[in-house]
């Protein structure tokens, strides 16, 4: 368990490397990029663009993205929050799964 936790910590610290790749993923542009590329914003895209608000949009802290280091911090925080929520979900799943199967085995 210890080794796995250390591996995850190292991965979390290294995540900002993922910010170094320039540009955005093909087909994952925001509305301004869409407008730049095609000259217009398709109606449906504009309509559904912001149906929910996210706590850490684009894995960053809103307004705290003025430098690489700020973005990196937001990215690392996002990785930690993401892993914590995943751990919580599986902890809840474990609570819901009945114990009896193990007695059978």
């Amino acid at each position, binding site marked *: *368990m210890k*080794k*796995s936790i250390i591996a*995850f910590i190292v*991965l*979390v610290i*290294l*995540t900002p*490397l*993922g*910010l*170094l*790749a*320039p*540009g*955005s*993923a*093909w*087909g*994952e542009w925001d509305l301004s990029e*869409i407008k730049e590329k*095609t000259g*217009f914003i*398709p*109606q*449906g*895209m*504009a*309509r*559904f*663009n*912001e*149906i*929910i608000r*996210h*706590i*850490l*949009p*684009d*894995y960053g802290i809103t307004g705290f993205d003025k430098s690489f280091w700020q973005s990196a911090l937001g*990215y690392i925080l*996002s*990785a930690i*929050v*993401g*892993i914590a*929520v*995943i*751990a919580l*979900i*599986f*902890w809840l*799943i*474990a609570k819901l*799964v009945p*114990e009896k*199967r*193990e007695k059978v*085995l």
Partner: protein
Amino acid sequence: MHIPEGYLSPQTCGVMGAVMLPIWAAAGKKVTKILDKKNIPVMAMGAAFSFIIMMFNVPIPDGTTAHAIGATLLAVTLGPWAATVSVSIALIIQSLLFGDGGVLALGANCFNMAFVAPFVGYFVYWLIVKFKANKAIAAAIGSYIGINCAALAAGTELGLQPLLFHAANGSALYFPYGLKLAIPAMLFAHLTIAGIAEALVTGLVIFYLQRVGEENILYRASGNLRGLEQ
């Protein structure tokens, strides 16, 4: 490969959600049947690993970015149904908390990355291992093909939009580029760099898992590799 909000028409989102519902139901059933409670921490680690590996964007020669998924890695170690559950949970978190992939597009994104990728990857792995090949290499090849099939599915879903949904004047309502642009672009990113990243991550982790001892929690994830499957 995360299709954002508004890129697919609500109809497409509905169809893809309807396709995913029985897959999720089957996955839930299979996982509770095959795995026991002790495997849940390893499934959680699989979901967390997939989540974090998707944050490592790699540069693509055409100026865009892409990333590995870890789908086949999870399929080979935990079984493809458990991979569907774990990657789906990672994708749900990404769309709800970070806006990576649309909430309405969850059906489509889970179909591509949590169903097509792990199942195709696992199938190719299974075929290659039949010929007594090295499991790390078999998983790496499987993961390369798996992620590219997922990219093909995503490109198809995107590329169909302007064909099926346009305003009265013919302008696109949702994603504006057709199949001829979307499929080659999605495949280019994954055939070149992202697929290789996926294969490397998968091969290296499997190589490591084959060597972990019983004291390691990941020993539970290596049962399939030691030939305990089927």
